[in-house]
């Protein structure tokens, strides 16, 4: 069960999106999210969806990975849409009487539900585009670079990035360990699949205690190892693979921004 976790969802590849500089990708993803909430006209919505589809095609990543990313969010998306459908005041299209309440679906409700559904689906898809095409290491590198101007106001950019890198690095290790602990406790008759919720939560204790003990031990050992090699923060540290913003990145960003402006122009139509 734990062995199947895909870390950071990254799907290795050689597409244009994969080769882009992570800084550019992060900024453009932020732009994407802002865009999503600035759309107004149906035409703009359609154009933006088409642009997203083009990006998915450009990433050369199988559509099922995007769907897999949507699955855990499905409940929230449907829930939000349904709430909007029934609880938006306006011109009633249909109504039903349940006990003393009148439940009605309004024209505005249908519109809101559709818009919320659209926004959430594209929000997840758009951010998936970033995480699917960028390795966790590149991602943290990008975040570190983007945060680095903030070091002036004492934001520990390097340390934040380092912590993220370490956290990502230890996910598979801890997943493997969880698997072993689970097996060891199952061998002693522990039942992790009980239908009873309270029993199931109780069953987690024999799993979590050894896991936490081991995580703290590993953290301690890692700290000692880093200390032994005289690691100290980010001062004048160089990287093995420096990322640079190249011509391709600038070209991509320009096209991206141009598309965004065109889509916004459609809002007025």
């Amino acid at each position, binding site marked *: 069960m734990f062995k199947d976790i895909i870390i950071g969802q990254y799907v290795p590849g050689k597409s244009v999106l994969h080769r882009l500089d992570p800084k550019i990708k992060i900024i453009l993803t932020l732009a994407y999210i802002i865009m999503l909430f600035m759309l107004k006209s149906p035409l703009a919505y359609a154009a933006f969806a088409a642009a997203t589809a083009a990006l998915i095609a450009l990433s050369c990543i199988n559509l099922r990975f995007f769907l897999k990313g949507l699955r855990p969010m499905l409940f929230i998306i449907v829930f939000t849409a349904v709430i909007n459908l029934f609880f938006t005041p306006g011109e009633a299209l249909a109504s039903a009487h349940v006990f003393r309440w009148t439940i009605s679906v309004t024209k505005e409700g249908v519109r809101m539900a559709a818009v919320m559904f659209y926004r959430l689906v594209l929000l997840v898809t758009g951010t998936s585009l970033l995480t699917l095409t960028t390795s966790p290491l590149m991602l943290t590198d990008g975040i570190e670079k983007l945060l680095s101007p903030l070091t002036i106001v004492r934001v520990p950019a390097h340390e934040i990035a380092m912590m993220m890198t370490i956290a990502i690095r230890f996910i598979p290790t801890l997943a493997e360990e969880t698997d072993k602990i689970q097996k060891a406790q199952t061998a002693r*008759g522990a039942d992790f699949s009980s239908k009873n919720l309270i029993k199931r939560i109780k069953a987690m204790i024999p799993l979590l205690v050894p896991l936490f003990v081991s995580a703290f031990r590993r953290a301690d050992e890692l700290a000692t190892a880093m200390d032994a090699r005289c690691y100290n923060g980010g001062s004048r540290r160089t990287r093995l693979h420096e990322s640079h913003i190249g011509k391709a990145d600038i070209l991509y960003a320009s096209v991206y921004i141009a598309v965004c402006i065109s889509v916004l122009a459609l809002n007025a139509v």
Partner: protein
Amino acid sequence: MIKAEHVNYIYQPGMAGERQALFDISMEIADGTLNALIGHTGSGKSTLIQHFNALVRPTSGRIFIDGTDVTDKKTDLREVRRRVGLVFQYPEHQLFEETVEKDIAFGPRNLGLTDEEIKERVHAASAAVGLKEKYLSRSPFELSGGQKRRAAIAGVLAMNPEVLILDEPTAGLDPRGRDAILDIIKQLHAQNPRMIIIFVSHSMEDVAKTAEYVYVMNRGRLAIRGTTAEVFAEGGELVKMGLNVPQVTLLVNRLIEAGIPLPRDVYTVKYAVKEIERLLR
């Protein structure tokens, strides 16, 4: 009796990491025997033993414990796990309670025994592994490496298993700790005439000192099997598989090559001394 019939196991079938870990394993282990399972890291030892208590299901093939098919989906797996006790390599993976006593009681409690019975089991099990009473009220995290291992073994013994499997019980212990654990294994064997004991090891010295029967795994296959003497007589094969043959076996093999008439199955220093003495006389 444990019986495996043509067991194959493929890790992550259909995924990028697909790899066959076990190839056509067939074996029978008789009641009341003390067995060692040896092999290089990654030879499939740990995977095989996890099949015996149904923690892992074979891709194909069947495994029987006293005639009960543990690979059958209808078999009560909890009962299988009670009968086949498995102690994992690192006690850190199972110790979690506030006190050693409570931790050893975890298994019997899961079996739904009464407090009285549990207490009895805990004390019997800790006595069997030589864990002194005074440790029972301590935290398992305060124990030394060897004591942690004893507590972990006791935790499985307290379920009164018919088969006791220990994965690398001596790994990471100093020579005295190793000998102590091996002595416990021998004692358990002597005191439980019907119990099957299997211990996984990659130390041939440990195996030579302890086991009656030896199964050698190599790249997912059962390469050699037999009594300890029979297996050690194949010294050359073992070396080829990258296993460390006891030094005394290496010495005797050299002497045989040099034309000195010694038996091939010498694997303990005591036996070697006796044979060499006999020759010199």
